[in-house]
């Protein structure tokens, strides 16, 4: 029982982390508090559904199309919609407020377009649902794939951010965009790049999640909420933090559901979230702000 609870918690946590990692990049590096993030996750879910059901393209292969497409789309969103806000913002607080307002509007646009195309129904499809035995616990293969992606992306990005030149540039922009400029970092490019990258991760999350969750056009806000908790808990802008925070929440939910009461899974999420905020307000891996 314990091993099953832990493993299903890990897969659940992997899903949370996967969905949250893009947002932590967008918020941490580009400083855009993207309220439409969940809608973009759902867009990817629908795209995967269409590819799967009308063209017979399996969602994992579909990623090859959807990752670049989402990267381009988010690049365009940043350039057209958010760039003017960045340019006129006098400080970080102002940019945050403006970006919240702008992306709040974007949320309704994306949701409206999805509603026109797909209506309000539930969608779901069957892919890689066979059970895989992991140390005696039967777990659906698609959830393991999602977990795998979360771990690979989490660790991969951690390495990129800490070991490569562009990663260092991104971190510099995250810490202080003003000073980053002084060492010849193209801050605009870095912010735009990080935003688009975050969007691409949202697409990965959306595609993988669509393999095992029933989704509808109105579900975006659920993803945004969950992602926000994970992002703030893990430390804004910290990919590894998002991974760890996601896993903690997943395991806690599974343990509570098994040993206490499934009705308390949402409550435990917020209890842990509150505890982290009380003890370490900048998040598990966050740097204390000076």
């Amino acid at each position: 029982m314990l091993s099953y609870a832990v493993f299903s918690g890990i897969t659940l946590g992997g899903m949370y982390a996967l969905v949250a990692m893009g947002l932590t990049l967008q918020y941490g590096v580009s400083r855009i508090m993207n309220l439409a993030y969940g809608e973009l996750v759902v867009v990817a879910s629908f795209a995967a559904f269409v590819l799967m059901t009308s063209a017979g393209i399996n969602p994992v292969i579909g990623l090859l199309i959807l990752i670049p497409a989402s990267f381009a789309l988010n690049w365009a969103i940043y350039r057209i919609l958010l760039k003017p806000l960045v340019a006129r913002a006098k400080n970080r607080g102002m940019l945050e407020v403006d970006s919240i307002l702008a992306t709040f509007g974007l949320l309704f646009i994306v949701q409206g377009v999805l509603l026109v195309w797909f209506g309000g129904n539930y969608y779901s499809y069957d892919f890689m649902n066979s059970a895989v035995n992991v140390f005696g616990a039967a777990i659906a293969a698609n959830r393991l794939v999602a977990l795998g992606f979360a771990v690979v992306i989490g660790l991969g990005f951690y390495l990129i951010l800490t070991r490569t030149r562009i990663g260092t540039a991104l971190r510099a922009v995250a810490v202080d965009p003003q000073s980053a400029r002084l060492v010849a970092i193209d801050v605009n490019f870095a912010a735009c790049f990080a935003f688009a990258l975050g969007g691409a991760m949202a697409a990965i999350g959306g595609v993988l999640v669509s393999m095992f969750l029933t989704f509808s056009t109105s579900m975006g806000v659920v993803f945004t909420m969950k992602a926000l908790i994970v992002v703030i808990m893990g430390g804004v802008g910290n990919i590894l933090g998002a991974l760890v925070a996601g896993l903690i929440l997943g395991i806690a939910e599974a343990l509570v559901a098994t040993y206490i009461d499934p009705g308390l899974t949402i409550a435990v999420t917020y209890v842990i979230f509150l505890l982290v905020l009380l003890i370490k307000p900048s998040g598990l891996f966050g740097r204390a702000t000076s």
Partner: protein
Amino acid sequence: MQISSRLRIATLAAATTALIGTALLGAQAQAQDTYRIGYAISKTGPGAPGANTSTIPNYEMWVKEVNDAGGLKVGDKMIPIEVVEYDDRSSSEEAVRAIERLINQDKVDFILSPWGTGLNLAVAPILDRAGYAHLAGTAVSDKAPQLSKRWKNSYWLLGTGSQYANELATFLDQLKSDGKINNKVAMIAVADGFGIELSNAGRKALEKHDFELVYDKTYPLGSQDLATIVNEIKSLGADTFVAFSYPPGTLGLTEQARVLNFNPKIFYAGVGTAFPLYKDRFGADAEGVVSLGGASETDPKIADYIKRHIAFAGREPDRWASIVNWASLQSLQQAIERAGSTDRDAINAELAKGGFDTILGSYKPGDQNFWQVGQWQDGKFVGIAPTSMDGAQALIFPKPDWKGAQ
């Protein structure tokens, strides 16, 4: 703090725009010689998928069919229907506001019900006060009998939670006394109106029939990750699994039961099982799954309705609320024709008389003459209880093995 106040402004701004948009919609010219029907329905928000399955296609299809035939027959005139429609965004405040607008501003002749137990309960007193009949098509409440007394023109078409639970418990009791299942039942429910009503009723009914509830818990609304629950239930040795769940949970539970190869002799899942989505999703693995509702597709009227629904909406209707909703729309049409006028009181009086010829046979809104327990059999969701009803099918027992996923 600044952020939150700005956020509030943004919400307000968005809300105002939406309101202006819908208000404009409602302000369209009030042409005479039409019968104006209004409704507020969840086009967006968490209620949207349910409304889109059980309610919206039926309303739209009914209006189209009536208008294609020239309109409603009132006396010797044919009067086409004009629709005023609002999105209640799945919020009861919004639904109440929209219904008030339909009554006071749009002055519609008749108001069709919103989707879901909560919203129907919210708008019922307003409709009653303004003298409108209320055909609550998608509400399940144990208070239904009291409600129809309190608001005398309200009809609670899907009845009470107890009736489904009692019918299920009686049915299971028969299997138990035949020695086919043991007395252990594992029950879970979604922590929301429907799940709470039905699990309370189910607990009572099952215990009355000497079943032992080896598992009895709720899970939060919106949760689809129920693998840990299924895994625990699997080890408890219950022959019967009952879930009073909502669609996403219903699909999640079925999926996880299949992955974990949890195959009880009776697998009962909640709302969503009778949706065509369920069959699309699980294919042959839907076989043998039990739920609320059911349809006698051998009945030519039902078969014809399903065919027309597919032609109109591009998908099948669900096999529970859709059918009851359609019967209520047929009743409304006949009530107007029988009244021979568009006078609201005359129509209300006709509705109360009943005796309408519908896909559920002779019907009075509020009648519970439809299937309470159904089962997927060979790609069709058929009715199995009450066993006394015409066309009751034999239960496929035990539930066949999961064929496994793709």
